[in-house]
């Protein structure tokens, strides 16, 4: 009995378990239904190569793809008071927080990092929709303030990726107060003459849209992201009519003058590099290992072989 249970069974089990495949190799696109291989999906930054649907991406994954060589340093965010209202709905707020932390392996709904982007030092703040709907509470407010202070200290542009259902109700009025608080942070960056760029991702709604997400020097959105103050369901209930197709989506907002650009996630890094380098008056970004272009005029003898070639071509 002992020999069987201790030696034989584990051996048999291990034989079988080795053949098991991880169940997350394939993901189904929620939009077009295509099965996407995990490597392909990761390479495309969680966008569907078939229909360009943009799926959720965590700030950590995004930053790894964004910063040069995937290198970034996290910026410390001061810890706020936990559960100042002693909020309880069907669950206690601390319990909800514990669940969210366990689920996401993150401390809170915003990650702040600094690093090089196309050779320019930038500070980035990324909101995490998977953490309690990215909701804006005191931590998120502190994170934006920390990001702004860091940007001012480094004289670096601030890039913010928004994604949230809105304010965190469990912090009551204190979550609402993050609207003016985050606005103060944006003012710090602007007063220092630094660019503040907002990348709006799906979804950005409520008090988040009505504060720091709409105060950028430049507003870029990912395709088909829901961006609004009042959600479509609330509006339909109020006006009692069906809303037009694509209402409150990125392209619709672009048409209505609320955004500067709508940009595919895979093109975002290049676009942010182009914009930040121009706003910080740096020369164009050089891709690859080529040396940076110099502003010196080419000397006369450098031109000679070119002229010769041209001359020989004419013959």
């Amino acid at each position, binding site marked *: 009995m002992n020999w069987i249970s201790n030696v034989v069974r584990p051996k048999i089990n291990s034989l079988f378990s080795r053949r098991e495949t991880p169940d997350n190799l394939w993901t189904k696109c929620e939009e077009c239904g295509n099965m996407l291989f995990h490597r392909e999906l990761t390479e495309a930054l969680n966008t569907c190569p078939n229909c360009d649907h943009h799926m959720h991406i965590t700030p950590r994954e995004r930053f790894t793809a964004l910063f040069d060589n995937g290198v970034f340093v996290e910026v410390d965010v001061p810890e706020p008071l936990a559960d100042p209202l002693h909020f309880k709905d069907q669950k206690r707020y601390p319990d909800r927080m514990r669940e969210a932390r366990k689920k996401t392996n993150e401390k809170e709904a915003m990650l702040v990092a600094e690093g090089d982007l196309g050779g320019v030092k930038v500070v980035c703040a990324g909101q995490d929709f998977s953490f309690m709907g990215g909701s804006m509470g005191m931590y998120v407010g502190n994170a934006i303030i920390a990001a702004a202070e860091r940007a001012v200290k480094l004289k670096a542009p601030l890039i913010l990726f928004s994604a949230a259902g809105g*304010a965190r109700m469990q912090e009551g*009025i204190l979550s*609402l107060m993050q609207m003016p608080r985050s606005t103060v942070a*944006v003012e710090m960056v602007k007063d220092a003459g630094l660019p503040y760029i907002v990348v709006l991702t799906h979804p950005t709604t409520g008090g988040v849209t009505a504060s720091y997400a709409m105060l950028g020097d430049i507003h870029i959105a990912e395709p088909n992201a829901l961006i609004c*103050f009042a959600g479509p369901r609330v509006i339909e209930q*109020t006006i009692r009519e069906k809303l037009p197709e694509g209402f409150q989506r990125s392209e619709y907002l672009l048409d209505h003058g609320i955004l500067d650009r709508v940009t595919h996630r895979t093109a975002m890094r290049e676009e942010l590099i182009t914009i930040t380098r121009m706003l910080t008056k740096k020369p164009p970004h050089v891709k690859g290992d080529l040396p940076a272009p110099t502003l010196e005029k080419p000397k006369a003898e450098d031109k000679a072989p070119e002229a010769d070639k041209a001359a020989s071509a004419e013959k």
Partner: protein
Amino acid sequence: MQNYLEFEKPLAEIEGKAAELRAMARQGEGVDVGNEAEALDKKAAAMLESLYKNLTPWQKCLVARHQDRPHCIDYINTLFTEYTPLAGDRNFADDLAVMGGLARFNDQPVMVIGHEKGNDTKSRIERNFGMARPEGYRKAIRLMDMADRFGIPVITLVDTQGAYPGKGAEERGQAEAIARSTEKCLQIGVPLLSIVIGEGGSGGAVAFATADRLAMLEHSIYSVISPEGCASILWKDGSFAQDAAEALRLTAQDLVKLGVADRIIQEPVGGAQRNAKQAINSVGLAIADMLKELTPLKPAELRKQRRQKYLNMGDKALVA
């Protein structure tokens, strides 16, 4: 004619009886009802006082929304002279949900801006029940800018359920308008004081209430979301609004403890709706007081203190 709230029903009965007795006496039925009516009055007064001393957060919501409470227009007409309304956002329209203009407060020129809900069916519709559209915030931004240029203090009166959830409002950039209005509140170099006179509903309130000093009427509320909305999201059932009202800590009393509001303005017994004149008068005294505190401060100092106030917010928790 008094409009009674649900929780005031027992009070309504007693007051009704007293009124009936008096009516009988007037018709000369020969009974002396004086004593009895007086006793009922006393009982009603005691009941009113105890009811309003112990209002639950949900009852406060009902009082804050009471249709007979003095509105922005009443405060403007009573407390200010030479009120000169200024209209329009210079882009699209004039939003009647937001009143605003130049006026004098104790002869001092001020810019007064506030939500107006309307007081009968026609004016309520005209004013969209006090729910501003983007043009309302943009008008406020314009007026705050003007006040800033001419060194005139700004007084805002907050009384709104929130921004209007409409199609056009979204298309014309409601979120951006609110964000810019909050930003403007933080930029101007003149005293900015704000009074929540009824409902302070989420973003629509923040756009005006981001101030050097925020005062709240005793039975007013200020919240991130309406209790009904919160209940339907967190409890998945709007009928839990009473629980949500408790949990949200939206009363003036809790907000002072949290450091969000700076002071409470006492209301007459039974709420501002029972004695509008007295309530308006108390607000006037509070405005005078706050203006006196802020007037000596230089523009840079005002801006700095205002920003610091919001940066510091959130370091006070409530006792369990």
